[in-house]
């Protein structure tokens, strides 16, 4: 029962409202805090690296932090949990630490069972929402932005800048690959390659969280040392006229974000019990989609002002912050159990799509030249001519449509073949 309602329809409505207030509240927090920071003369670069970069991922980050706190508190002994065995705390899962606490008689077997249940269900929801949001942005939203940019410019394609592909897109792909590597159960991989069962979903341990969080700091430092001037142009909010009022609004909006995250996590529990859908699937289909909207609106409105670079940078930047900061910080607090579909479908699909697009953008001319030879040999002069005139880093309208199609294929496969998180 959530907020006194137990019916499925009422919970669905609460779910929609909580996700909308989560995303809208996050937008309000960013604009108000940015205005206040500017009023007090905080450097534009510092604002861009903190408020703006974290702001676009605030719904996912809040969901992770609230979820991780729920996991910790469900153990009934959150502080003792950190004082059990240092090595298990660092590279073990929440479930392993619970077992240790039970062995020592700190908690009962009932608490262990309830906390494990919270651990699995919360992990599924928050990781599904996080990765789901990334998939939507990397396929559907990116495809739509490129398509809109090409159509607005009355062109047949969209030219990516080399800097964008190297400084933004490649790190995004690297981030996804890192997340996949950390999410895998490497012992299971070795076992599977030796003929064992397919048990490759692992745990995001605190060590993994430190690696992800550390990578976020390293990336921020890289940005700070290489593109200060560009970062300074990222925020477009005016300095606040009434800083105290705006600060109060910002804090109130943050409370709304946290409450919305808590309500959403409770609604998911009801939805899972009533519908039989997995937590990660609900995360993918709800927060995953809705939290991508602000980035889409920002990106498309950026196109109208002719700033494609900033649009795509914001879009892709949020895909770097989501896994590194949200999963990183959440794993440090509580660790997460990785749902099976994440390592078998979501993350590999995301990495491969990004990798193929990146490789294609840098080798399009070579591929065109290679294909032109057999076409010319077959007497298809005009086709060969077209193939030879292809340019690197240009994605055609058809390519953008293909990217959008990838999203629907992703959803179809996800909903039909990966229905269970921990079965």
């Amino acid at each position, binding site marked *: 029962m959530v907020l006194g309602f137990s019916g499925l329809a009422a919970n669905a409505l609460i779910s929609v409202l909580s996700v909308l207030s989560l995303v809208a509240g996050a937008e309000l927090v960013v604009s108000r805090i940015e205005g206040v920071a500017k009023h007090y003369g905080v450097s534009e670069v510092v604002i861009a690296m903190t408020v703006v970069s974290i702001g676009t991922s605030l719904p996912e980050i809040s969901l992770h932090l609230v979820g991780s706190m729920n996991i910790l508190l469900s153990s009934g002994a959150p502080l003792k949990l950190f004082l059990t065995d240092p090595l298990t705390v660092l590279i073990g899962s929440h479930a392993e630490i619970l077992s240790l606490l039970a062995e020592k008689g700190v908690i009962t077997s009932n608490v262990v069972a309830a906390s494990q249940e919270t651990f699995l269900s919360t992990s599924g929801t928050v990781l599904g929402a996080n990765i789901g949001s990334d998939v939507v942005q990397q396929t559907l939203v990116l495809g739509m932005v490129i398509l809109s940019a090409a159509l607005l410019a009355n062109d047949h394609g969209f030219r990516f800048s080399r800097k964008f592909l*190297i*400084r933004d897109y490649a790190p995004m792909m690297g981030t996804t690959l890192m997340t996949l*590597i950390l999410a895998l159960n490497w012992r299971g991989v070795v076992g599977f390659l030796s003929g064992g069962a397919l048990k490759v979903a692992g745990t995001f341990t605190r060590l993994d969280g430190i*690696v992800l969080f550390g990578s976020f700091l*390293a990336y921020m430092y*890289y940005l700070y040392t*290489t593109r200060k001037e560009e970062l300074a142009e990222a925020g477009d909010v005016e300095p606040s006229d009434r800083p105290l009022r705006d600060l109060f609004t910002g804090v109130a909006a943050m409370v709304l974000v946290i409450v919305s995250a808590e309500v959403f996590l409770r609604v998911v529990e009801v939805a899972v019990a009533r519908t039989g859908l997995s937590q990660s699937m609900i995360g993918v289909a709800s927060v995953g989609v809705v939290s991508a909207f602000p980035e889409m609106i920002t990106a498309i409105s950026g196109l109208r002002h002719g700033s494609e670079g900033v649009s795509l940078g914001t879009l892709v930047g949020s895909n770097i912050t989501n896994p590194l900061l949200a999963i990183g910080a959440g794993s440090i607090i509580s660790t997460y159990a990785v749902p099976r579909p994440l390592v078998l479908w979501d993350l590999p699909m995301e990495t491969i799509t990004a990798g193929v697009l990146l490789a294609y953008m840098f080798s399009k001319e070579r591929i065109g030249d290679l294909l032109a030879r057999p076409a010319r040999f077959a007497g298809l002069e005009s086709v060969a001519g077209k193939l030879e005139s292809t340019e690197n880093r240009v994605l055609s309208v058809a390519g953008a449509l293909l990217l959008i199609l990838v999203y629907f294929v992703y959803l179809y496969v996800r909903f039909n073949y990966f229905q269970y998180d921990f079965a």
Partner: protein
Amino acid sequence: MGWDQRLREVLLFQAGVMVVVVATILFSSPSDERLFEVFGALLSASITVFGIREMRKLTA
């Protein structure tokens, strides 16, 4: 010491530890999941270090 030099040293250190971890996994019965956890973490951290180093080179 330059930034790239530091990154190179971190990468070499990680590679060294990774070789030790992989050798331990291969030459002992891989019963301890923790070794695999360390392997995954090192591999992932290497991507960050290597990636940032390459990005700095390519966009210098």
